[in-house]
């Protein structure tokens, strides 16, 4: 299991680096899909099957395909022609390295937490799927945040219509 963990973590990380480093937006988008696949595998290793599958279906599937369509409709060469200044590169990688160093320092300062988390599937005993349990939680304990999200989605829908229509009616 540890080997698989490192394998998929590396996949997610290299995918992420690929998104930033690639000059061609299409390659960036493909790298992002790779990164999402690694993440999905990590979720599945943690017994969060639903989250893992949603990661692939929604993110790697629907959202990234939408991204690719948009990229293809835009002028891709523009981005490739743009020169990148060395100052920006050094600055950005400096910030990124500093942040990673910070996380490593924090992690190396011993015990990071006392909290014990049980997997959803274990808490209710065997035989119940996590889809069932997440659904139940969302519509019982977490019903209030779900209602707020409903307002959020309404706002986003109104916004898309207002901002993107060519002629208003």
């Amino acid at each position: 299991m540890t080997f698989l963990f490192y394998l998929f973590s590396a996949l997610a990380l290299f995918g992420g680096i690929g998104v930033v480093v690639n000059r061609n937006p299409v390659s960036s988008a493909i790298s992002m899909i790779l990164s999402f696949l690694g993440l999905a595998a990590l979720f599945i290793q943690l017994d969060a099957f639903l989250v893992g599958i949603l990661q692939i279906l929604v993110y790697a599937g629907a959202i990234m395909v939408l991204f690719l369509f948009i990229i293809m409709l835009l002028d891709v060469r523009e981005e490739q022609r743009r020169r990148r200044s060395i100052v920006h590169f050094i600055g950005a990688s400096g910030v990124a390295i500093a942040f990673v160093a910070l996380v490593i320092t924090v992690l190396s300062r011993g015990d990071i937490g006392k909290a014990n988390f049980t997997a959803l599937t274990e808490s209710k005993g065997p035989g119940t799927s996590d889809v069932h349990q997440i659904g139940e939680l969302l519509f019982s304990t977490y019903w209030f945040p779900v209602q707020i999200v409903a307002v959020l989605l309404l706002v986003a829908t109104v916004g898309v219509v207002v901002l993107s229509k060519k002629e208003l009616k």
Partner: protein
Amino acid sequence: MPVYYLEIIVVALGLVVLMVDAFVKLEDKRSLAWIGILGLAVVFALLFKVEWPASTEGAFWRFYSSGDSLALFFKGIAVLTTLIVLVMAIDYSPIILKQIANPEPGAHPQAGLGECFALPLFACAGLMWMASANNLVSIFVSLETVTIAFYIMVAYLRRNVGSLEAGVKYLILGALSTGFLVYGFAWLFGITGSMQLSEIATALANPELNPTVALFAFALILVGLAFKIGATPFHLWIPDVYQGAPTPITAFLSVGSKAAGFIITLRLLAPFLGSPALFEKVVLILTVLAVLTLLVGNLAALPQKNFKRLLAYSSIAHAGFLVMALACSPHETGGEITLSPDTVIAFYLGAYLLMTLLAFLVMTTLRTTIPGEERDSYRGLAKRSPFLAFALLISMASLAGVPLTAGFFGKFFVFALAVESQQWTLLVFGLIGAAAGFYYYLKIAVSMYLSDPPQDSDAAPISITPLTRITLLALIVLILLAGVHPGVILGLIG
């Protein structure tokens, strides 16, 4: 009436405005704003009739705090701000119509105006949920509801390059800051095992806690929060976004979004400040943040020539005073403190609401007659419209902190708090900031009263609608009243 009905009423109001816009043939779509204004006035009155439930059993109260007078005060701020923003939007609608997409042939000539009255209502509901949120989940979803509504409203003037640029900047930087906030939440959940703020406070007060990890979570959360409240060094978006956004939305951002940011900040920092192991370091970080914000906000405002940009830096400067109050939080074991940072911040934000909205209301009223928002276009305003000039004078005096205005007591309480908690460094920087403030706020007053109007401008008096006139008068009276008797606002905080 149970407290949670308030948000439901506000969401329903938003839906009514959307539906009426879609299905009822209206002569003038500005009447939609009236639905919102009247509805919000009713909601504001209902705030005084709130009942708290006897039992807080049930899933709902895990996300919504009960018996919380501070939350009620911030809900009041949200409702009042939205109401005045709608008043401004009525005055500003000719400019909105000019800069959104053309209507379809045969469509209503005011197409696209209705949504601009509905979106602030949904944002208002989000701000009200933020005021009561006591759980990381409800904090996050209500915050995002507000932020997404703002992304849309900032970019609303589609054919105006400034508004679009502001929208894109706000979207990208806002998403980045949300990322930091959520990462911080994840660490906090990881070390405490809970998303409930009360349980997090207990877990953080545990002496066996590893302080490094808790501070890391704190730092990440603070980055996200500092972005929302506009504290340096996360203030870079503010001048551009405030300048580019439609003026009523700038007012909404600078009052509504900032107030809600501060209530969330108060709630999220309380567990960290209550932990004996973390207290000193957290206060140190807040002190540094306050000093930077005070310096950058006040000094960068000095050379500004554009009035909207000046108000943007002024909002950073005020965030500096508010963070300063936060950094003066008393240690639990410390001596007797008569002022609590919660009360001081709530009072300051109440006063800030009155004076900032007054300034923006004058600006939107002038916008239809005076083309620019440069400081020089207000030269000699007193000769053309003595009433508007007087309103702006009161607002500037209050923002600067001249005695007998609400702004004076806001700053006074912050400084009193700094003295009580013996934060001398902060006091010095606060005084420097306040002194700089006098210069840049009163410069506008001087140019309105003592300079001649620009040569090419006409001297025709500026027409003010009755609604705007009443709102302006109410704000002026409240500022002066709170400046003589701060109990007017303090009494509401409870």
